[in-house]
């Protein structure tokens, strides 16, 4: 489990980093926290000729909270998010979801940009980005482009990023006052990647009905996804136990997980329903009599 032979460079500016990536035409790979890339190298599932360490590029480790929303620089670590007390108000869903990521050692190193670029279908950050309609800033040799989160992931561990592009920022739209939300995931052990996870939030209008519901799931397909059928069901209604069960049934049908060594597909499908019930019940403060 030693790394394949490779070279290493640590550029000091973003432009330099991108130039190096571009010059190596796909044989170079950026490394940030290394928490996903290093295992791939150790197993020799990836063998780039050059590692471009972007870990010390300036200006990419900010957490900015403004009327525009919450901006997370690509080099923000899970620990940075956990330690930023402002986020429990400015984006409680983000804070709650990131609390489930991995263990201390990994949380100290793993980054927002690395997680988005790695695009693990069970990872929390891409899931939250999609659930919240985040906007991802991508910089390449030809300048900057803004990619909506739901267009960013293309499938299992693959994204729209070109080999010479880097994520620099992700912007989560502003979190509204009095928003109802919850996040639940099911993992075998604390810190493991989730077998399934559900994030949901909605606002309440003056009639007590749900507005603009967002429901996202992780771990049950080749990428995180939104459950628009469920969102459509919830929109404009007021939440009650019956609606929750209906939503859960729709959610089960909307996902298409596969079997793997950790769980059969039917389990993950059912967990989406169970977790959605729990998420909506928590968000709406509704006591469900669970059939058990």
């Amino acid at each position: 489990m030693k790394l394949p032979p490779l070279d290493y460079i640590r550029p000091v500016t973003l432009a330099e980093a991108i130039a190096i990536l571009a010059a190596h035409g796909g044989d170079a790979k950026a490394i940030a926290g290394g928490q996903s890339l290093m295992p791939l190298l150790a197993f020799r599932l990836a063998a780039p000729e050059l590692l471009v360490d972007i870990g010390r590029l300036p200006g990419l480790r900010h957490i900015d909270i403004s009327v525009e929303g919450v901006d997370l620089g690509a080099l923000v670590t899970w620990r940075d998010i956990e330690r930023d007390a402002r986020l429990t108000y400015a984006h409680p869903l983000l804070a709650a979801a990131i609390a489930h990521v991995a263990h201390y050692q990994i949380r100290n190193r793993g980054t927002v940009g690395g997680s988005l670029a790695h695009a693990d279908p069970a990872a929390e950050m891409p899931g939250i980005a999609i659930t919240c309609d985040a906007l991802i800033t991508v910089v390449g040799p030809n300048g900057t482009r803004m990619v909506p989160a739901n267009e960013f992931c293309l499938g299992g561990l693959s994204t729209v990023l070109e080999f010479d592009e880097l994520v620099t920022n992700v912007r989560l739209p502003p979190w509204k006052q009095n928003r109802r939300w919850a996040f639940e995931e099911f993992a075998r052990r604390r810190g493991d990647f989730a077998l399934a996870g559900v994030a949901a939030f909605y606002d309440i209008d003056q009639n007590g009905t749900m507005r603009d519901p967002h429901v996202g799931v992780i771990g049950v397909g080749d990428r995180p996804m939104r459950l628009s059928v469920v969102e459509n069901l919830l929109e404009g209604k007021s939440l009650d136990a019956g609606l929750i069960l209906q939503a859960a049934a729709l959610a089960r049908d909307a996902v298409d997980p596969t079997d793997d060594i950790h769980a059969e597909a039917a389990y993950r499908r059912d967990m989406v329903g169970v977790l959605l019930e729990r998420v909506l019940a928590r968000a709406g403060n509704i006591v469900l009599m669970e059939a058990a």
Partner: protein
Amino acid sequence: MNNVSQLLVGHPVERMEDARFLSGSGLFVDDLERDGMLHAAILRSSIAHADIVSIDTSAALRMPGVHAVITAADIGGEIPVIPLRLAPLPEFEPFRQPVIAADKVRYVGEPIAVVVADSRAIAEDALEAIDVQFEALSAVTGRGATEDALFACADDNVSLRYSAGFGDADAAFANADYVRTERFSVQRHTALPMETRGLLAEWDSSSARLIVTGATKVTFYNRRALAKMLDLGQDDIDLIEIDVGGGFGVRGEFYPEDFLIPFAARKLARPVKWIEDRREHLMAINHSRDVACELSIACRSDGTMLGLRGAVFSDMGAYIRTNGGVVPAKAAQFLPGPYRIPNVSVSVETFMTSKTPVGTYRGPGRFEANFFRERLIDMVALDLGIDVAEIRRKNLITEAELPYPIDGLVPYEGPTSYDTGNYVEVFERALLEIGWRDKCHLQGRLIDGVRHGIGLGCFVESGGAGPKENAALTLERDGSLTIAVGSSVLGQGLETVLGQIAADTLSIPFDRIRVLHGSTTLLDEGFGTYHSRAVVMGGSAVLDAAKKLREKILEQAANHLGRPNSELTIADQHVVAANGASVSLAALATEQVLSADGTFANTTRTYSYGTHAAHVTVDPRTGRVEILDYVAVEDVGRAINPAIVHGQAIGAIVQGLGGVFFDHLVYDEEAQLLNASLADYLVPTASDFPRLRAVTLELRPSLTNPLGAKGAGEGGIVAVAAATANAVAAALTPLGVEIHHLPLTPPRLWRLIKDARDRTPTAA
């Protein structure tokens, strides 16, 4: 003064090895560096069952930094095979493993070539350049005949079958009021020492001597085996034991690498180091468990047990390694457990598959047997409408019945009897600890979305395997004491325990004692650490040596002080006479060599015993199990160091819970190991099971050894699956769920609940 209050045995003395480990000054194999040292990496078969057509190493050999690529062709002559260390049955001989594959591979991970290079990284690069052509054969993944048998001598892939027993089980079953038969299984999993295996082999050409560092467990045996394979005299080889980061049964047996790395060092006349990486570890270390059982019980309608029949089926993997058939043999032997069952018949079938070979792992066979039997007992209790505690109480062997013979359950072992104990008292203590009376009304109850269950598991557990152990004690010139012992230290605190025993006998302060262990350089002969034997055997040998040394010291002091031995005591590093005259130990040792050899021989096993109790909740919608309370109560005869015994017990419970919920070596239908990494092979971590308790009792000392000790390292694991699975089953009984198979993963429990519901749509 040898006054009782100062005795160390029986007290939770701080471990003498802790300061070294906690300050990072332990010395493990990978810490060793030598001038001119090379690094080895092993090409392992990527395919489960195949004929090897050709191996082309030329490209690898041409790579800069590569010194050698060793294949079967380079070994010359007959390829050595790994010997059967325990119970060497002739039936197993054709199934022994060659140390390197010559023309056939039988499991993913089997060594095909060894690359020796300037660094491990270069060696791994070279592995990728070796071209092996295979002709694939069909993989063997389960019991029964296959298209391509693994061995020409066994069309049905079966390596051993036997039956054994006592009483008349057929008659018991024919006449019983009640009979039930169920099939159970425990999944393939194994130990996961923090430190993977590693060896440093050094060949001294001028003296034609070999030194292998990183050996452990059974160093003297392994030296004999290696000497034979390398055609060297035993005295030409030293096996050195330094710090070891965990053994649990799997580490220290003779593996292919134990030949290959020394062979490479001799061939190149350079020091060669090999450190197993975690992926290798998971496919190369002995796997274990993987036992299925069809178990039948015959009872009176009042729950009195009359007969037990068990058929044990054991997936041995591709070869029979050093441990032979210990796993299935012990699974069969311990089926009756601590119960009075007059008629028992067992059978064992070991079959070969194209998976990693199987060996012993902490509590071999017992973990499985207790799970099978204790599960079945709960099913019986439910059928007969008897409380699960009551049915156990009624059938536990009473003290008056001890010693209780269990002869004949292992055909190739002599008679043996459960020795001393009070099984019922320990059982009642476990009920008290878990709060059985107050909690049993919770069984199966749904509270806040989770169902509660409390489960029990009783066990007996053998330890203290013979034949003997040796120790040598030396009083050094500075008055300190050196203990050399043939037992191995694998991180279990043995240095401290042996130090306590010697300190008490010789009245020498604990911090003036040094323990040397395991290495073949220390003694002429040693027997090692397995079968919970190190304290029973090694400890008793140290005691013997310490008594002899004390006599020698006093005798010599008597000459000095002109007083008879009987008036002398050892205190404050001096021998003091009743009249106040004294002479220092250092002075005595400077005058004359003061040392003594001790030995302890015994082939009678000790039987510790106990009861585990678990209180769990199960989320019936997700299958998540939470341990609310867990208590293991065990009588170990005598706890030399209660803190160490407690740590052993807690660690063993956690390890057992791993076997219940997480650890699982998953193979696909091509016999590919699917989870050879810690990303996918799950083990318990520090936060998974925070609420565990262990109660160690010293009710009935062992009569087999002067310490009164019984094995204490395995009782914590052997009943974990039994108690925990019973608790989970109790929680889910109202849903019509029965538990037969491990591991109890959330998806599996979810599936069981769903299937039970689908059968009876109206179930609550």
